[in-house]
């Protein structure tokens, strides 16, 4: 797992076709298109707002079912 202040994460939401992008600033965005999601992540800070405190927790890496 990578650490640091400039790490982008993209989670494949389990049991869906959606990707959840998490910017290094904490902003999140969902997409079904990795190209579109990368464009959004790299556009930081345009359109990036931190998720509200107490909102849904960021998904941690977990074992994927098969």
């Amino acid at each position: 797992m990578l650490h640091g202040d400039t790490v982008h994460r993209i989670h494949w939401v389990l049991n869906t076709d959606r990707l959840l992008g998490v910017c290094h600033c904490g902003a999140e965005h969902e997409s079904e298109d990795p190209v579109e999601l990368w464009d959004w992540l790299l556009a930081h800070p345009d359109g990036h707002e931190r998720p509200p405190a107490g909102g849904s927790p960021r998904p941690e890496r977990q074992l994927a079912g098969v």
Partner: protein
Amino acid sequence: MTTFARNQWYVAAYGREIGRELFPRTILGEPIVFYRTEAGEAVALADRCVHRRYPLSESRLDGDRIVCGYHGFTYDQSGTCVSVPGQGRIPRTARVPSYPLVEQDSFVWVWIGDRDRADPALVPRAPWLDDPAYTTVSGMEPLAARYELLVDNLMDLSHETYLHGGYIGTPEVANTPITTEVDEENEIIYVSRHMADAECPSFYAKSTGIEGRITRWQDIEYHPPCLYLLHSRIAPVGVLPNDDGTDPDAFHVEVVYAITPETEHSTHDFWAVARDFALGDEEVSAFLAESNRTVVLQDVTALDILEKVVENERDGYQELSVNIDTGGLAARRFLKRMIERGERPAAEPAAAVRT
């Protein structure tokens, strides 16, 4: 515009390949001759005599000096010409470029770019390859395809299910979601695929002795442009690492690739498999070496085909990227950035991070 990222370290060879014989290898389009001095130090010089461009690799060593096989121009290990046939004066320009080298983790790394920008501390590590706690098998296959195709291939392991079925591929690989992490500042890409309950491919069943289904983790760590690490963890289903991080009941395999462009259309495909079990077991080593080479050659066959397709396609062909390509897209972006940065003069460093 070049498709190579200059001012980077690349694996040129395994240390075992370089000895007292002159050894040619082209890296990023640059013909280079390698050898070891009598003291054992590896040397890399441009493989063209300054006189009439005869390959120095087709010449001979005299002590630590190369004597050109055509007219006898003689070069020391710094590339300086120390003897010209028939005359005492040695022209000021009579020298061939030498290349900075670092020997580390069983590899010989070469710096392709401006000499004064070569920093040995930037060479990425693959410590398992030279660690007595691991047993390693390794090789290199020539690939008649551009290096970008190999990067694409290795960044998306879902292809294992289809291209390497029966060897390392099982249905779960393609069917298991991935997590992609990208460190923008340090230019590292991490792609994780953790399979909780998967079929055990023969590659791991025969080498570990595990019977039945497995927990299989694949964690890719790519240090573009050259070094690709696949941290592979194999254990019986449900066996996880301890809370303190120790993992005594799993089998660990570190699969290492070094992706070194030879020309615009060919690549040196270095591969190594290091394991922390069956240490020194020659039967297991022979099986893993043969199996991994088979898998690499399956990739080589496919990518050689793909290279011809790409070479002959019309401009502007529109690819389609899907979820499995998330890490590969990041790799392409880093490589593009490195290519652009490598072309800039040293006084104009690139901003590495978008903020």
